[in-house]
């Protein structure tokens, strides 16, 4: 790629080009906004994780362990609401997407940089209101805010739904920005069939964000109004239909699970290609499967409501459509396996997360079929089986994908390498802790343990105790990881432009990138996975061993 790095000496990187707190607060640089998103989502990940540990601590023994039933209801609601609305949904698009999507397109910025800043501040306002809701009277409805309970409880339903309403617009504006950027800001030579699959995944995600999120917005708005003005649309006491709320809610929230998982899959593509030094097998199929998932995702919301009161014909149709989801998901998994086949695989920490993603997401996806089947769902509905299923997709999928991306791009974002050994220790703890926590819950659920219950029968004690112990291991893993990343910022080795020897476009710029990403408009002459076309200079100048040669420009 014609980025002519060596000719421009000493241009400051985006972290140092401007200084002062104002240069961050008013920045329109997509990279700085990405970093600000990253800090925010990681903070809320820690908060959500704290509530998760509270929940698991309470469930370690039957009866009251550390908190009252009312407190427990609030703890699991806050865990869910914070993780979904403040962490997972903005995580990969907000942090990694903002940072890397324009760079991968060879653009200087996203299409609407000021809108990007606005979208970040909308997120901040939403997050602030969510925090206020905890202080006012933390909500206890579960993150789904089902009516009629959410119109009766005296907790701060209005505050927290207002927060989610506002956060939705942050998500929508990010989607608008990404779609316009992908369509109009691609570098010369970067046609659709050369786009990195991360960009394809972000694009499909953006489509869902734009088409599904406004429906959640109007639903939550009506729920707020139902509480404030008593409309009688959802509240059965006034003639409303509580199942209508569920339909509306899941019309957004099912596509929203693809807002969560597609970015995870998008990251995994990049990591798998880099660490197996191979072109992604069946590139167009993988790209289209993202778009396919985005579309099919709109047709299956009813599978959350099989026992909520729908006609049996509707449940049949929704069940059938749900199985369609397995097709694009399967296309991805099998193409990834084919990518690995005869690849030159190395097992750095990003790759460990990406490979775990494939295993854990497959378990999460296949257990979804049990829940999409009418007869088995009646037994498994609202049990820990469901909890385990969506944690395998959301944590084993999205969070592992996010962590793969975070490890993979950390040197590019901050210009520092992290301690690989410590990263592997953290990985081992997270992987083992995660499986201890949630595999156990498949067993609990299939034995009939209902979700969200405060208490349980004594014979569930060993499994619940084991699951709680796993949560502790998982928590320790994240603490080690946080330590590892913070330490790399202060004492990490300086990262070369291309530490992993990747053919991806984003590695063709400095680490960390300069303010305008590239010194001059790049022209893409090959695809991002064309290892057979990449020159040795592109691939190997960045290896740590040969760092002096590559870092000549710094």
């Amino acid at each position, binding site marked *: 790629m014609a980025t002519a790095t060596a000719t421009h000496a000493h241009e400051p990187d985006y972290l140092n080009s401007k200084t002062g707190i104002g240069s961050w607060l008013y920045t*329109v640089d997509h990279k700085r906004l990405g970093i600000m998103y990253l800090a925010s989502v990681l903070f809320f990940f820690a908060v959500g994780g704290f509530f998760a540990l509270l929940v698991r601590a309470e469930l370690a023994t039957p009866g009251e362990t550390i908190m009252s039933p009312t407190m427990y209801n609030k703890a699991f609601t806050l865990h869910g609401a914070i993780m979904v609305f403040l962490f997972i949904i903005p995580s990969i698009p907000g942090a990694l997407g903002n940072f890397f999507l324009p760079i991968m397109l060879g653009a200087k910025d996203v299409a609407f940089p000021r809108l990007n800043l606005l979208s970040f501040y909308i997120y901040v306002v939403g997050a602030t209101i969510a925090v206020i809701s905890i202080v006012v009277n933390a909500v206890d409805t579960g993150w789904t805010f089902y009516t009629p309970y959410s119109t009766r409880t005296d907790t701060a339903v209005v505050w927290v739904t207002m927060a989610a309403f506002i956060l939705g617009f942050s998500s929508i504006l990010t989607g*608008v920005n990404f779609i316009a950027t992908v*369509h109009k*800001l691609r570098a010369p030579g970067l046609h659709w069939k050369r786009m990195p699959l991360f960009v394809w995944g972000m694009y499909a995600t953006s489509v869902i964000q734009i088409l599904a999120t406004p429906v959640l917005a109007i639903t939550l708005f009506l729920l707020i109004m139902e509480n404030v003005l008593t409309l*009688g649309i959802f509240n059965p006491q006034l003639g409303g239909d509580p199942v209508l709320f569920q339909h509306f809610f899941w019309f957004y929230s099912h596509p929203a699970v693809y807002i969560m998982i597609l970015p995870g899959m998008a990251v995994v593509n990049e990591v798998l290609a880099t660490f197996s030094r191979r072109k992604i097998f069946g590139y167009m199929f993988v790209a289209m499967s993202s778009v396919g998932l985005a579309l099919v995702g709109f047709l299956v919301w009813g599978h959350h409501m099989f026992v909520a009161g729908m006609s049996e014909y509707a449940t049949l149709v929704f069940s059938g459509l749900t199985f369609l989801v397995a097709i694009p998901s399967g296309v991805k998994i099998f193409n990834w396996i084919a990518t690995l086949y005869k690849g030159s695989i190395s097992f750095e920490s990003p790759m460990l997360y990406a490979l775990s993603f494939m295993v854990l997401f497959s378990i999460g996806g296949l257990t979804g079929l049990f829940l999409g089947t009418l007869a088995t769902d009646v037994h498994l509905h609202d049990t820990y089986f469901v909890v385990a299923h969506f944690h395998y997709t959301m944590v084993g999928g999205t969070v592992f994908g996010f962590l793969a991306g975070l490890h993979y791009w950390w040197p590019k974002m901050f210009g520092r390498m992290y301690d690989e050994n410590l990263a592997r220790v953290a990985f081992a703890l997270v992987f083992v802790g995660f499986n201890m926590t949630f595999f156990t819950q498949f067993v609990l659920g299939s034995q009939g343990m209902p979700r969200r219950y405060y208490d349980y029968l004594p014979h569930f004690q060993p499994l619940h105790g084991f699951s709680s112990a796993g949560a502790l291991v998982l928590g320790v893993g994240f603490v080690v990881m946080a330590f590892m990343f913070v330490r790399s910022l202060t004492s990490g080795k300086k990262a070369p432009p291309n530490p992993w020897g990747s053919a991806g476009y984003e590695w063709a710029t400095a680490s960390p990138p300069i303010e305008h990403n590239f010194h001059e*408009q790049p022209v893409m002459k090959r695809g991002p996975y064309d290892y057979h076309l990449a020159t040795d200079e592109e691939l190997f100048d960045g290896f740590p061993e040969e760092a002096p040669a590559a870092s000549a420009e710094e």
Partner: protein
Amino acid sequence: MSAENAHASHGPKWLQHHFETPIQQFESAKLGMWVFLAQEILFFSGLFVAYGVVRIEYPEAFAAGSMQLNKIMGGANTIVLLFSSLTAALAVRSAQLGKRDEVSRYIVITILCAFAFMVIKYFEYTAKFEHGLLPGQYWNPTHLVGIDAPVEHMHVFFGIYFMLTGLHGVHVLVGIGILTWILIRNNKGEFSKEYWTPVDLAALYWHLVDLVWIYLFPLLYLV
């Protein structure tokens, strides 16, 4: 983005630094606006679906509720909005031809129409408040047209009515803000034959506000 103007050779001053050509900037802005309008439609679609579901549930209540609305005022508002859409379109045309005074004139007319719409809406709302035709717990009808006694669940109709027209009204108010902003920028001479994108986008938004009303009016007042 002021610092980016350091690229002296980059092009006209309205061309933002991260775009290569004016046409790229225009197409990005236009695409972004269309995508944004798509989400607006889905935002309202939730309410339209709620309307459909509740209407099927309580058809008599909807028929009785519809009778209470003032068709004259609703019809007048429809005409006002349709006319304002025409002037918005003419403003874009004038902007493309670089006729700055004409643009201002058309935008002023559009804004006046928007105010007229809100004034008529205000009279409609106050009448409903006085007659106690309000949603849920505030439901206290004192004056009914065409029926002797309130029909059961009629208040749900007014719940939907106030949500649909209220959210549409908020969009009209936002539209007034946007059009005023465009007017100020036009008077400053920011637009020309070469650069009229913001006028175009504001008009697109205004057409959507109009379009939503085109569906609201028959659904609430007529059928």
